[in-house]
Structure formats: structure tokens, C-alpha cells
């Protein structure tokens, strides 16, 4: 296995392939509860789609030329990736760091804080991928997918999951209790969820707010995913990907810096 040096300039994360062991540990645990977990992955978005799509969609009618259900499906794929990755990197990772001391055991083995953080964030991204894949299947079965391009949503979701996993890991790194996460939900995630074009198009908002939404990553994920789901091609993909990847890398870097100070001081 590749053993990266213990320190690097600017405190950049020293990445090694050993992070895979952390990712696989979480996969093993997930497999034990795979059935209920997958059931939830399918069930919850199905309920959302049906309840909001039919109930709400009748009132709303079409958005542009899209039936509301179709519009909503691509939004929920993105918001589900955000929620799933964030929950995993907040509550589950924090539990493994503090209550279960799972990370402590890993750090006694030849793993570093950077390996653990990368393994956890990759796992959060994987869970985002699993849940979004389930929604994609549901959407396809309901006839809400417009073409084969929808399959390209999956790598975008993986990046989105990594991005939100890394952002959540920063919060986990500074958090002293579970309660602290509520600030993140209230001040960051909920506004982002409501203002990123998941439930309604951004052009319904005042222009300043709509532009502001693009300072945060979720709107960029939606901008790529929605055209792909309709069987078309998104525009400005490079910029959207750069924002997602930028958030991912900066947050990963910040998370490892803070975690190293917390766990290795």
C-alpha cells in the first residue's frame, strides 16, 4: 500500500490508499442492515415524489413545459444526495469519532487522520450515490426520465455527495455535541435546500437571491442533473463541476486540518 509522508506543506491532506480500509469498514456495517436501508432509500423518495408530485403538482401544473413531477424528481435526486451525505458525515461519523471511539482504534493501526477523514467522506458520497440511484430507479419506473443521459447523473451525484460529506465533516470536526449540528441544518442546509431550484425554479426568486444561490454547491448540482434527467445536455457544466469540486477540496482540506488539531494534539 502507498504510504504518504506524515506531513505536507500548507497542511494539505496526505492522501494514501489506506483510506479504502475505512470506507470498507463502513460498507461492511451497512451490508448488515442493507435490506431495511435500501427499503428506506426507495420508500422515502417514492413518498415524496408521489405526495408532493401528485398533491402539489395538481395545484402547480407544469413548470415551463415540464410536468411538476418531472421537475421535482431531478431536484430530489440532488437534495437526497446532500441530505444522505451530510447525515452520514455528521451524526454517524461523529458517533464513530466520539462515542464509539472507532477512529481511535483506527489511529492505533497504521492509519492517519487524513485516511480516516477521506474514508468517511468517500463513504458519505457512496451512501449519497446509493440513495440517489434508488430515486433514479423510482423516477424511471414512474416514467419521469427523458433519456439515457440520466445515467450520467450518477457520477455527478458521487461528486455532490463527496462535496456535502466534506462540508459536513468540517462541522463534525469542530462540533462538541450533536446539538451543534442543528445550527448547520438551520443556517446552511435548509436555506440551501429551499433556494437551489429543488422544489421550484430559481427564476421565481428575486434576482439577487437567485444569484446568491449559485454561491452554494447544491444549485450547481441541480443545474447539471435536471437537463440530464430530461434526456438533454446541461450548459456551463465546467463551471458547475468546478464549484462542486472546489467546495469538496477546500472542505476536505479544512476538515483534515481541524481534525488533526483535535485528535493529534
Amino acid at each position, binding site marked *: *500500500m502507498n*504510504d504518504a*509522508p*506524515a*506531513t505536507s506543506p500548507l497542511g494539505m491532506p496526505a492522501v494514501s490508499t*489506506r483510506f479504502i*480500509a*475505512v470506507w*470498507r*469498514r463502513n460498507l*461492511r*456495517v451497512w451490508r*448488515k442492515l442493507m435490506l431495511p436501508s435500501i427499503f428506506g432509500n426507495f420508500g422515502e423518495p417514492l413518498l415524496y415524489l408521489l405526495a408532493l408530485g401528485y398533491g402539489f403538482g395538481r395545484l402547480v401544473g407544469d413548470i415551463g413545459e415540464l410536468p411538476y413531477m418531472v421537475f421535482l424528481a431531478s431536484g430530489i435526486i440532488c437534495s437526497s444526495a446532500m441530505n444522505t451525505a451530510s447525515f452520514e458525515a455528521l451524526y454517524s461519523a461523529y458517533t464513530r469519532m466520539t462515542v*464509539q*471511539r*472507532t477512529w*481511535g*482504534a*483506527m*489511529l*492505533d*493501526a*497504521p*492509519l*492517519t487522520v487524513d485516511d480516516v477523514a477521506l474514508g468517511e467522506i468517500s463513504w458519505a458520497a457512496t451512501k449519497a450515490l446509493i440513495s440517489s440511484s434508488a430515486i433514479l430507479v423510482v423516477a424511471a419506473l414512474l416514467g419521469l426520465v427523458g433519456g439515457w443521459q440520466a445515467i450520467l447523473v450518477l457520477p455527478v451525484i458521487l461528486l455532490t455527495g463527496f462535496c456535502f460529506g466534506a462540508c459536513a465533516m468540517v462541522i463534525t470536526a469542530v462540533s462538541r455535541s450533536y446539538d451543534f449540528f442543528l445550527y448547520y441544518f438551520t443556517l446552511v442546509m435548509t436555506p440551501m435546500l429551499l433556494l437551489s431550484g429543488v422544489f421550484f425554479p430559481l427564476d421565481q426568486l428575486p434576482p439577487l437571491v437567485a444569484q446568491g444561490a449559485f454561491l452554494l454547491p447544491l444549485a450547481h448540482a441541480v443545474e447539471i442533473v435536471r437537463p440530464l434527467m430530461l434526456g438533454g445536455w446541461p450548459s456551463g457544466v465546467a463551471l458547475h463541476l468546478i464549484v462542486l469540486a472546489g467546495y469538496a477540496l477546500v472542505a476536505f482540506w479544512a476538515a483534515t486540518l481541524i481534525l488533526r488539531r483535535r*485528535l*493529534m*494534539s
Partner: protein
Amino acid sequence: MNRAEHTIIAETQSLTAVVRARGLCKRYGETDVVRGVDLDVRPGECFGLLGPNGAGKTTTLRMILGQTPPSGGELHVLGHPVPEQARRARRRIGVVPQMDNLDPDFTVRENLLTYASYFGLNGAALGERVDQLLAFANLDGRTREQIQALSGGMKRRLSLARALINEPDLVVLDEPSTGLDPQARQHIWQRLNTLVEQGRTLILTTHYMEEAERLCDRLAIIDHGTIIACDSPRNLVAAHIEPHVIELRGHDIGDWQTRGGALAARAERVGDTLLLYTRDPEPLLQALGGDPDQRYWHRPAGLEDVFLKLTGRELRD
């Protein structure tokens, strides 16, 4: 001996010593937790770090494992400079932590398999190794149990088995028998002796004198971040304390403090107990024989007497 010979010897020692520390320091803000520790842990020995709470034992262990960078000094573990190459060193180290951190999401056997994966170990030989370790820890009947179902002693045995998954040259144990009942403690001690017989090097922290006396070939008594004595338990007792102790309790101690103090090499008053240390107990025992009301206890001096003499008797919180 000339300078060149000195250098050669120093180099050989750094190659053979399992842990070699020079002037190791750790400072947290304004507090010096470890100040200038020199250590040479020899291959195949059981080396104890003995000290009161807050003496710097656990911090020293964490520096050895590369889990906190020293504020100063030099440190080599298994020939690797630490913390620079701590990961390489940890590949050959097994750790039994002070507080159990077994993985509650896995069964007993899965815990060993998962921990092995952190070392990059897998394959057919691993299954055999896991079975051997479960037998070593007397847990072969409980391989499919959840961690929550284990007693404290079983958890500690599993922690020890887990620490051996990578066939380590060095096993580091932070208070290995704290919180265990006597049976569980005896079992752990036997297993640790087996490890030393297998040629592994052990470093353990403890504040149990009996544990230190029974297990350790050599001990460093550490207090306020410095090593104040380092030798075999027997030599420590011989060097620092008179071999006989007579403890007196009861109503009339004040009188004996002067009488006994004259017959003993050293007298110490702790609460309502008077401790008389002496090389020749006979005159004292004769004098005490003439006072049938006085309760006393004659015992050989031990490590605890050395420890309390060197670190003092005030409570540490």
C-alpha cells in the same frame, strides 16, 4: 573510550533499542506535561511506566505511537524516526488502549477481521490467525457474539487479541488491567508473560504496584513529566528503601514516633499510621513485644514504598 567508539555505541543502541527517546518534551499551552524524558526500551523486555495520574504516562505513549507530536527532543521507535515515520512504526506495533474501543457494529470475530484490514491484512492465512488469537484470548466460544454482550474482562482480552493481529514486535498497553476483577487480571498477566516469552517487547503504563512488580523487567517511575528513577523493580527497592517496614496503628503512636524513630532508619507518619523503615527489624520488634496494646504489622518493603517515597503522598486528581 574515545569519541568515535562513543558514536559507534550510540548508533548501535539506536538500532537495537525498540524505543529510544532523548529529551522528549510535550507542552500544552503553558503546561509542560512531559519534560525531558530519556528512554531506552530494550528488545524483548517488559518495560513499565509507573506514575500517578497526570504524570505524563499516557502522553509519552501517544508520542511513541506518533499520535501527538513532541514539542522537543528526539524519538525513534523500532528504528523509525517518530512522528515523521510513525505510520511505518505502527505497522509493527500493537496497541491495547486504556478505554476499550472495540467496534460495537461488529461481532467478536468481525472485530479482528476488520482491524486486520486497517493493516492491509487479508487472505486465507488471516482466518487462521484470527482463530489462533481467539483461542489465545479464551474467546473461541464467543466468536459470533456482539461486543455489548461481553464482560469487561472479555473485552480487554479481545483488545489484547486485536493488538496482536499484525504479529507486532512491540505491544503498547495503557493500564491493561484497570477495572478488571482478580481472575481477569491474572489471565491478562499470564497472557502478557506469554508474549514476552515469544520475544515481543512490551511497554505498559500502570499505577498498580503489584502489576509492575510481577510483569516488568524494568520500570521508569515518572512524575510531573520527568523520570525520577529507572531500574528493575528489585533494584529500585534495594536502592531507594530499607528492606523492612513496620506499620503501627492505634492510640499511642505519638510515643512510638520518638521511641521507634530512634530504633528505625526512617520514620514516617501518615494519618493515624506510623511507618518505620529499617534494615534490622529485631530491636524494634523486641521493643514492640513489650507493649502488648500496640497493634503493628511487619512486612517487607515493596515498590509501593519506593513509589510513595519518590512521588510523595498527597492526592493527585
